[in-house]
């Protein structure tokens, strides 16, 4: 019984080592990772008019924040990535090797190595430093999804489907990228039987409804310029392909963990990858695990997708231009996730080889006791993920530090929340990313003001990406209403502030349904003297202005019916699945625990 908790305990330990100070009081802000105190569920459901990228992850955060402090919710989300990832990969390997039978100590060692390798690698570190916790939550669920697909063959359809839905819960929270990764990782394995493939597709669709339906009806477009901006890049001396094989290659140089890619650590990492791939080939050949072909196909397919933005950017951009549904393919490095799972299992298999512990490959007398050299090598191999990537240790070496929001931010949030009248908040300067001085160490982050208020917030969702030649690629945003409000303001591209006559601002903004203007950076905004604008809160890095009521033509923002209906359908499916599994387990255990069963 105690042994069942080993994967979870190991996951908690790894989470503590990786996150460290990030688990303390305060909110960790970094690139896309924005948590705010008391987030509003209503605001999330009102959302934006473009692609609903924040659904359902932000909705889940907002719902949890009604019962827990915001920083606790963030710590839970980040910790879940490591705990679920370690436990899932650990159990996947031991389940594939030993089935439901007892797992010997050597198997536990191999499982632990698999679990550690799955969450301690460049992919996790770079996505964490990019702030994409929701993607990582889906990534953590991949081994669970693959295991659930494998189990479909041994359960009645309803029971197998319920298990699959539960395994997909992290991906459902993570949103579209997580669901796509789940399909890529488990799809080829599920295709062994049409029934399994059908059940997987049904589960993915049912759990994707909160973002799938609005994205289909919104007519959202995706800018093909994103291919050039978000294609994989080389972050090691081995080029883009080598970097991707090592599970790195994220587009953003600022998301590379400290020290990663140096020749020595990169060479050590490459050696580990070679051992892992050799372990995978050896295990696949000797034991023929049921996922061998499917996961190999997933990994190769993922690598091809990851390279598409590098090798054939033109055709990929044309595809995205043709249909925005191809948009998720622009961030290529994301798709090495199945390769990461394959390498983790391969490293675990290498440990089994070193310890001569793979069932069926030893004599009837049992495996010979491994020598000291093999044992030391096993320990070194097991810890190699940390040795080759020390930059992830203890909050990514200071890259993940919690901070408190300045009082003016909370005052602005409270002032808007206290106002029952309808009307949106416009966030200035007109640029999505900030480097707030109050965040301690300079760190780039999506402006937290975009998620601070309990109503529709209009902000510039264009994405500016710097290129190595000193240029800039601008990926056009997806919120048409934001474009509509911004257009008459003649916004200065350098300062992000309106260029129109100040006296015209209240009417221009009020007529488009804006009631508040939040200036979320320490700039000389020049709005204090404008007639028709009333200063509500002023701090060094947050000023909130209210547009006089006479100018505002706003109607109440209602939550999107399709989003709510989709969310309720997904939630209902998930609750049914949990209930079905509990009922089935109770029924299964009932007779077994009765007298006279002899078990």
């Amino acid at each position, binding site marked *: 019984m105690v042994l069942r908790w080993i994967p979870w305990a190991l996951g908690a330990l790894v989470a503590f080592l990786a996150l460290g100070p990030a688990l303390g009081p305060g909110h960790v802000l970094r690139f896309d990772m924005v948590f705010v105190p008391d987030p509003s569920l209503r605001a999330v459901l009102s959302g934006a008019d473009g692609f609903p990228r924040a659904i359902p992850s932000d909705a889940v955060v907002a719902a949890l924040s009604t019962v827990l402090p915001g920083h606790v919710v963030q710590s839970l989300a980040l910790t879940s990535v490591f705990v679920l990832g370690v436990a899932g990969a650990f159990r996947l390997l031991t389940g594939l090797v030993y089935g439901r039978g007892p797992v010997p100590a050597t198997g536990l060692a191999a499982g632990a190595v698999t679990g550690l390798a799955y969450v301690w690698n460049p992919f996790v570190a770079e996505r964490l430093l990019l702030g994409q916790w929701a993607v990582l939550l889906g990534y953590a669920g991949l081994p669970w999804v693959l295991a659930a697909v494998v189990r479909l063959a041994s359960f009645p359809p309803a029971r197998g489907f319920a298990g699959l839905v539960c395994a997909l819960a992290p991906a459902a929270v993570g949103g579209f990228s997580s669901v796509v990764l789940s399909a890529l990782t488990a799809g080829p394995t599920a295709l062994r039987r049409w029934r399994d493939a059908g059940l997987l597709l049904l589960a993915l669709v049912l759990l994707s409804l909160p973002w799938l339906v609005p994205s289909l009806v919104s007519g959202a477009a995706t800018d093909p310029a994103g291919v050039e901006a978000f294609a994989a890049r080389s972050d090691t001396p081995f080029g883009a392909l080598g970097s991707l094989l090592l599970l790195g290659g994220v587009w953003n140089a600022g998301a590379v963990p400290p020290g990663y890619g140096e020749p020595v650590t990169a060479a050590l990492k490459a050696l580990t990858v070679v051992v892992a791939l050799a372990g995978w080939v050896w295990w696949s050949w000797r034991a023929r695990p049921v996922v061998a072909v499917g996961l190999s196909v997933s990994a190769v397919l993922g690598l091809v997708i990851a390279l598409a933005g590098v090798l054939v950017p033109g055709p990929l951009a044309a595809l995205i231009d043709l249909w925005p549904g191809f948009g998720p393919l622009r961030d290529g490095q994301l798709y090495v996730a199945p390769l990461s799972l394959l390498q983790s299992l391969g490293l675990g298999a290498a440990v089994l080889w070193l310890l001569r512990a793979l069932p069926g490959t030893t004599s009837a007398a049992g495996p010979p006791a491994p020598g000291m050299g093999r044992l030391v090598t096993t*320990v070194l191999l097991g810890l190699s993920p940390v040795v080759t990537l020390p930059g992830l240790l203890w909050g990514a070496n200071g890259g993940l530090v919690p901070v408190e929001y300045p009082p003016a931010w909370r005052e602005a949030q409270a002032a808007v929340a206290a106002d029952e009248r309808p009307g949106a908040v416009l966030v200035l300067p007109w640029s999505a*990313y900030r480097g707030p001085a109050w965040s301690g160490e300079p760190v780039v982050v999506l402006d937290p003001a975009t998620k601070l208020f309990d109503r529709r917030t209009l902000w510039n969702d264009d994405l500016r990406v710097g290129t190595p030649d000193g240029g800039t690629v601008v990926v056009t945003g997806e919120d048409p209403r934001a474009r509509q409000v911004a257009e008459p303001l003649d916004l200065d591209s350098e300062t992000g502030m309106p260029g129109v006559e100040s006296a015209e601002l209240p009417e221009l903004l009020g007529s488009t349904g804006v009631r508040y203007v939040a200036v979320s950076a320490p700039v000389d905004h020049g709005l204090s003297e404008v007639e028709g604008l009333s200063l509500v809160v002023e701090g060094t890095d947050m000023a909130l202005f209210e547009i006089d009521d006479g100018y505002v033509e706003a109607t109440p923002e209602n939550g999107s019916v399709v989003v709510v209906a989709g969310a309720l359908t997904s939630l209902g499916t998930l609750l049914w699945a949990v209930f079905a599994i509990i009922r089935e387990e109770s029924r299964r255990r009932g007779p077994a625990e009765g007298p006279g069963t002899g078990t």
Partner: protein
Amino acid sequence: MIKVIAACVIGAALAGGATVVATNLATESTATAEPVNETLYNYGDR
């Protein structure tokens, strides 16, 4: 059992030493983001 514990100690010591060396190599190499101006930033730089 003693052999296993000894192997763990030796392996962990070697791994720890290698991690320290790698960490030292890692310093001074953190990428920093350049602001567009004093208050606005790119999403990131390639």
